[in-house]
């Protein structure tokens, strides 16, 4: 009898707890989307990126630059911006978990990140449901701005632009009539390789198309399949160390074929002499107006702080988001919807990327373009802006 009463008590208590949670949930949602957050003195944004994991080296730069801008803003403005950080480890499942946490945090008015396209796809349904505006600095998959990903914005141009830029350079400048394309079966590499293949074939270029296993550590046999007479090998791999191995093994086998990589080519792990790569931002060290910012960045983060082509777009993303949040907070309260509307209005007449920044209604930057580099004497040099 006593045991039955105890069991009944547990069941009733559990039911009450569940009922209370369900009642509370709508209120939490209401706070995050309806009434607005008080932001007269401080406002909060989220940052999501691969702080640890397989691409932590890129993640370090994607994190350092927006936090650098944040420190500059907070030093010179009354409205203080706080950041809540989430480490997605370059893993879509982690990205969706962090997105849920951010959406549930009513104070967060906007998010910087995620770092790449698969994480955006994973986080998008949650951000969309929570009405969260978010800016991915370097996610380039073309379909991300098709309207299905909520209030999504990005700084880097889409892969459709990269494919066009690459195929144009291969035919117009390199005069390639025979190209071999290998993708690494990743969600980034395959669509980009397909797009470049189609564009090249439309221009009458002979294309040999294949892919490598993502677990492959040896490309010797794959290199043997490259047809004779191939003038360029196009390798939009996600991992620069693997592209480096491919290039080294081509040299080992005496294959003197030009290499052209995707945007992961801007890395100390990839240094094949005379290889080309396209990427979504210029080397800001070549822009004189950026010298003061670069010096300030190294002063704050140390002389060895990362600076490739990933950091500057992340810096610009922070500029846009914080400007929009500040605008929305003018009356002391802000909602995510207001921040989204203000993101569409914010315009930077100049930026450290060397051009103005303004978002289209779809979330792309007006006039964004890819830059082509060539590795000369072990260092990347711009060959086409």
């Amino acid at each position, binding site marked *: 009898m006593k045991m039955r009463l105890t069991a009944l008590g547990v069941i009733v208590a559990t039911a009450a707890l569940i009922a209370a949670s369900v009642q509370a949930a709508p209120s939490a949602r209401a706070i995050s989307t309806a009434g607005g957050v008080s932001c007269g003195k401080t406002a909060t944004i989220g940052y999501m990126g691969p702080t640890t994991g397989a691409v932590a080296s890129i993640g370090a730069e994607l994190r350092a630059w927006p936090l650098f801008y944040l420190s500059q803003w907070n030093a010179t403005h009354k409205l203080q911006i706080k950041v809540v950080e989430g480490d997605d480890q370059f893993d879509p499942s982690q990205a969706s978990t962090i997105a849920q946490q951010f959406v549930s945090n009513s104070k967060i008015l906007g998010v910087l990140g995620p770092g790449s396209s698969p994480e955006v796809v994973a986080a998008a349904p949650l951000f969309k449901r929570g009405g969260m505006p978010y800016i991915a600095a370097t996610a380039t998959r073309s379909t991300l701005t098709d309207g299905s990903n909520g209030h999504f914005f990005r700084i880097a141009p889409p892969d459709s632009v990269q494919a066009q830029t690459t195929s144009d350079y291969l035919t117009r400048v390199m005069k390639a009539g025979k190209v071999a394309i290998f993708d690494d079966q990743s969600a980034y590499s395959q669509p980009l390789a397909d797009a470049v293949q189609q564009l090249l074939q439309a221009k009458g270029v002979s294309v040999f198309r294949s892919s490598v296993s993502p677990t492959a*550590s040896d490309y010797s046999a794959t290199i*043997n399949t490259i047809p004779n007479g191939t003038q360029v090998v196009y390798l939009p791999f996600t991992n620069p160390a693997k592209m480096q191995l491919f290039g080294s093994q081509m040299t080992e086998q005496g294959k003197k074929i030009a290499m052209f990589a995707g945007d992961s080519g801007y890395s100390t792990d990839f240094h094949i002499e005379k290889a080309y790569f396209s990427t979504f931002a210029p080397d800001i060290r070549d822009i004189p107006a950026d010298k003061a910012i670069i010096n300030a960045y190294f002063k704050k983060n140390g002389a060895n702080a990362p600076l490739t082509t990933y950091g500057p777009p992340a810096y610009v993303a922070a500029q846009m988001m914080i400007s929009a949040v500040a605008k929305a907070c003018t009356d002391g309260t802000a909602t995510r919807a207001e921040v989204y509307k203000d993101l569409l209005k914010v315009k930077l007449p100049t930026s450290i990327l060397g051009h103005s920044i303004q978002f289209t209604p779809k979330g792309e930057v007006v006039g964004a373009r890819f830059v082509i580099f060539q590795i000369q004497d072990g260092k990347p040099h711009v060959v086409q802006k």
Partner: protein
Amino acid sequence: MDWSKLAQLTVDGTTLGCMYALIALGYSMVYGILKLLNFAHGDVFMIGAFIGLFVYTALGGPLTPSIPIVLLLTAMFVAAAVGCGFLGVAIERFGYRPLRNSARIAPLISALGLSFLIQNSALLVFGASIRSYNTFEFDNGRFFTLGIHTNLVNVSLMRLIVIASAAVLMVGLMAYIRYTAVGKASRAVAFDREAAEMMGIDVDRVIATIFFVGSALAGIAGVMFGLIFQNVFHYMGFIAGLKGFTAAVVGGIGSIPGAMLGGLFIGLVESYAVGYLPQGSTFQDLWVFFILIAMMLLRPTGFLGKADIRRA
């Protein structure tokens, strides 16, 4: 017939096969003596690659080695062999010995758990980034520009060193098993553990020695991998271990000559499949595991394995 392509693919496959063979030997030796599949073996190979990298870096790396290159390579191999040997002994002592008299599934699960433990420990300690041996910058790239370079085939000096070293190790292992007292004891324990124990053989010591030798070979294979294929990372042992296991099974699990033959066979099959089949590189791993399934269906004992005789 493109003889140049065939010759090059043969060289590439032989290089790969040598590494698979060295990994497979560890699987076969342990299975022969304990009837246990040591799934942590691939991760011992990974640790060997990292040990080689750290010795190499500590002694000046590719650009400024502080000792002659021959000594540097020797130091890398010895450090990896010794380090992985002791790791193998520790794995046996703490992961398998307590379960030796348990149901067969228990050490298998322990093996899987150890594999994940080593992999994730490496992730924690070494990080997730891919590290590179950068051997193309070793001695101004001479290890890759020197060698046999003809119209028919290109074989770099580094590949020649790896193939020759692997051959010496395999022959040495065969001699060790055949002619030394420990080798004879190992064969006795593999044949009948209880009888060997009754004959006064220290079975625990023999098993520990086998784990040491097998793991040492995997460690050396790890260094060879880094020297030829540059990139080392915490999950590199997973696929290499599976292919080494496949090689051991194809050759005849428990057979040392079988492991060598299986390793070379798998390496060549992978190379020829990538080179000749349509979309061969896309499905590079598929061909190897297809061979495994085919072998299980057609000849479960492998090329040189023997069927178990069970008493009624």
